[in-house]
């Protein structure tokens, strides 16, 4: 279970309040598919993912990225109960989507890199550390119902 101090929650909220969910979600999912091309195994139905350009320009990638990051927003709103918040999604990712939980860690780290890119100096080591805890907590929560 992840424990975030008041200070860490503050860091997370401060960044989150300035995030463009649609843009950052698309960026994060796009980078996941480009940096770790094998993750495209879950998205064969998305069409052309053959190049960085086609991935970033793909409307389905953009749409799905936005969806994923919107859901991540629930994590930010419920930092003290990630397992409960993501219980249903965990079942979905196991039973219907068949996603190896390793992918949650990959996407979490990609999200951290996207945030670093957007926020630069503001994304201090301390801010990063809080976000690393949160993405690790989300990854764990999403894997929690796997069987």
């Amino acid at each position, binding site marked *: 279970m992840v424990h975030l101090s008041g200070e860490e929650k503050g860091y997370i909220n401060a960044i989150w309040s300035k995030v463009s969910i649609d843009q950052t979600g698309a960026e994060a999912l796009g*980078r996941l598919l480009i940096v770790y091309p094998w993750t495209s195994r879950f998205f064969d139905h998305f069409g052309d993912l053959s190049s960085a350009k086609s991935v970033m320009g793909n409307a389905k990638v953009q749409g799905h990225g936005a969806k994923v990051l919107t859901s991540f927003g629930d994590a930010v709103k419920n930092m003290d109960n990630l397992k409960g918040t993501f219980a249903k999604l965990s079942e979905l990712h196991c039973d219907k989507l068949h996603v190896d939980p390793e992918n949650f860690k990959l996407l979490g780290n990609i999200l951290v890199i996207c945030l*670093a890119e*957007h926020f630069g100096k503001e994304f201090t*080591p301390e801010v990063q550390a809080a976000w690393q805890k949160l993405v690790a907590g989300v990854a764990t929560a999403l894997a929690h119902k796997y069987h």
Partner: protein
Amino acid sequence: MSLTKTDKALIAAIWAKVSTQADCIGTEALERLFISYPQTKTYFPHFDLHHGSAQLRGHGSKVIGAIGDAVKDIDNLESALSKLSELHAYILRVDPVNFKLLSHTILVTIAAHFPAEFTAEAHAAWDKFLSKVSAILTEKYR
């Protein structure tokens, strides 16, 4: 996973930017490592790891310098990193999991400093490059 011509060009281009602030980048990557992953501090009980410490700066400089040497000899990574590979295997014996952590904080630092240049393609190339470097540094472990 091998580096293509395009990868190598992207790696060199990012290095050109990094090298303008090499020590600062190396130091920051280490700071991020120690703060996000406190367990990594166990390898440095003999260091003052506070922000601004001379030892931190010296070590950051060393690490980024080695990466720069690797970039300059990118077609010959195994031989370029041979001595460091032995050092890590026989003397330092840093657990292999930590190479991924440092690679990640290096990427975060580059992204924060050079957002415009750190495109998705450059990100992919550097992720591959650091994976290769890590693999070579742990190659002689057993």
